[in-house]
């Protein structure tokens, strides 16, 4: 039996603001518990919310980047439920009149090439506090520093067809949100959180079956795993004659298993109603236009431009534009005079590898990388030597040419000098010379390698090969 998975993601994203959504408390991460709290975010009797304009602006930017319709008037609503980390007994969110609706997100699916997923809605809300389960023997500790931190919730349509696709969608979404600078999207710090609606159906069916909601996916690495486990559970259930019931499943990363949420309060009767403490959220056209003009070039547009302007392949352009800082770096290298394809090759390999090992720092200045590339192109450095120079510049700084000279890596292109090394090598490997002359021409690579070795990497390899060919042919 062929099964199809249907997944829709609800993503909560913490907005990058200094103060909380409805009070002036700091949003800084990592402060001692309950030190960034006030009457408002503690839910003390009599306290009232006052909305953070910057958070609203960042949410509008997110909505615009996702191609959503941003509504000139939206309404805050109360979502009522009891939980100890929810101080007021309700979360201020948005319900039937959200900030923005109907956008899209295109991403490269591992299975279906480019997929355009729908964004159903994007709304503003406040975060809850944190429950600490392992600190007290008999109790749970509640820290309300995070209570009231601004979030956007991005509700994606049921457009994803596999756990791997869900992961690709999330990666693209994260990349977009980082690009536009509205969130640091750090899943480990909880600034990006994802819940998934999952159902399965037989291939060819068009109706949706009962879905479950998978929560508690706390790390990027778990997205695919958690969804796979839930998908497999549903398929096994149906194949053994059971039916899927609508419920919330919590992912347990340690066991790589999902289990139904234990609490009986599963009614989900949130009794939404308009928040009477806040007037309507009215956005002027000027405000929305300001947010639009604050948006940088978005990743998809940048990728297309790189393909057109620098003649990169779509794959290379995708890698180079995957991160805004990398894309900007690449363009600086090209602007410093490097040939675009060579610059892409260097950025995708050496530069990214070095950054990966050093807290995402692009340690070699764009001008220096352009110089390294020029030295290779001019035949002054071998590719191998250039990598060494790159590593040296990354670690210690300095001028690439000076470093190459200091390390003695400048390529020798003097035929007489190279011929000397060739003579030594051929003299030392008489048996191989014989085999070569008997037709085993693939040994040429071996001879070139030996010449490079004898020259300590300084010989120009192309010249070395030409001299080798001449000498081996001459005495035949």
């Amino acid at each position, binding site marked *: 039996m062929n099964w199809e998975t249907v997944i829709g993601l609800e993503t909560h994203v913490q907005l990058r603001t200094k103060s909380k959504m409805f009070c002036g408390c700091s949003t800084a991460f990592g402060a001692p518990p309950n030190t960034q709290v006030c009457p408002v975010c503690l839910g003390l009797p009599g306290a009232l919310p006052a909305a953070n304009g910057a958070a609203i602006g960042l949410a509008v930017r997110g909505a615009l980047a996702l191609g959503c319709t941003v509504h000139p008037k939206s309404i805050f609503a109360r979502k009522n439920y009891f939980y100890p980390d929810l101080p007021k007994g309700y979360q201020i969110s948005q319900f039937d009149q959200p900030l923005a609706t109907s956008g899209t997100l295109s991403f490269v699916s591992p299975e279906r090439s480019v997929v355009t997923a729908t964004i159903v809605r994007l709304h503003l809300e406040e975060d809850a506090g944190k429950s600490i389960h392992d600190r007290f023997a*008999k109790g749970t*500790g509640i820290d309300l520093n995070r209570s009231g931190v601004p979030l956007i919730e991005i509700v994606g349509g049921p457009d994803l067809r596999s756990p791997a696709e869900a992961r690709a969608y999330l990666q693209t979404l994260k990349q977009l949100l980082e690009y536009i600078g509205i969130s640091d999207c750090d899943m480990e710090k909880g600034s990006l959180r994802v819940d998934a609606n999952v159902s399965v159906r037989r291939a060819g069916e068009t109706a949706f079956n009962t879905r479950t909601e998978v929560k508690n996916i706390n790390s990027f690495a778990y997205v695919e795993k958690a969804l796979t486990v839930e998908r497999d559970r549903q398929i096994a259930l149906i194949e053994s004659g059971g039916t899927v019931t609508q419920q919330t499943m919590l992912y*347990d990363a340690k066991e790589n298993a999902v*289990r139904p949420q234990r609490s009986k309060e599963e009614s989900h009767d949130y009794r939404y109603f308009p928040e009477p403490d806040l007037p*309507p959220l009215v956005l002027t056209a000027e405000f929305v236009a300001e947010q639009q003009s604050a948006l940088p070039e978005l990743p998809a547009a940048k990728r297309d431009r790189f393909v057109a302007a620098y003649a990169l392949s779509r794959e290379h352009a995708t890698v180079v534009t995957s991160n805004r800082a990398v894309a900007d770096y690449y363009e600086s290298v090209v602007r410093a005079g490097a040939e675009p394809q060579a610059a892409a090759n260097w950025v995708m390999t050496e530069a990214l590898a070095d950054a990966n090992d050093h807290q995402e720092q692009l340690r070699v200045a764009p001008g220096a990388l352009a110089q390294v590339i020029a030295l290779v192109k001019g035949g002054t450095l071998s590719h191998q030597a250039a990598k060494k120079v790159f590593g040296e510049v990354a670690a210690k700084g300095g001028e690439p040419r000076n470093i190459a000279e200091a390390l003695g890596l400048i390529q020798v292109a003097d035929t007489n000098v190279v011929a000397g090394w060739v003579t030594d090598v051929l003299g030392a490997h008489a048996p191989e010379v014989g085999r070569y002359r008997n037709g085993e021409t693939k040994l040429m690579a071996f001879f070139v390698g030996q010449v490079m070795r004898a020259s300590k990497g300084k010989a120009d390899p192309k010249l070395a090969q030409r001299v080798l060919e001449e000498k081996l042919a001459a005495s035949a």
Partner: protein
Amino acid sequence: MSVSREEVLRIAQLAELDVQEQALADLVAQMSRIIDYVAQLSAVPANGSVKPVVPGPDAIRFRTDEVTPSQLAFGPEEFAPDFKEGFFVVPKLGQFE
């Protein structure tokens, strides 16, 4: 009775209120009476064109994004029923609740 016993129990659970068994019959009767009373609103012909309005300003004001916490005159340890090592403490919750 316009409100059933089961409904009162369900609502009480949603509202996290203990309802004593001996008080339940009275509560069902009182709630039914109140709900019947307010239900006269639905006797008025519905007018879909009426937009709900609430008094107060027409639009939300935007607060400047600055860290300006309003100071508490004293900390949670003074008013919390159970406060240890900087945390409000509640009965143990499972990680998967």
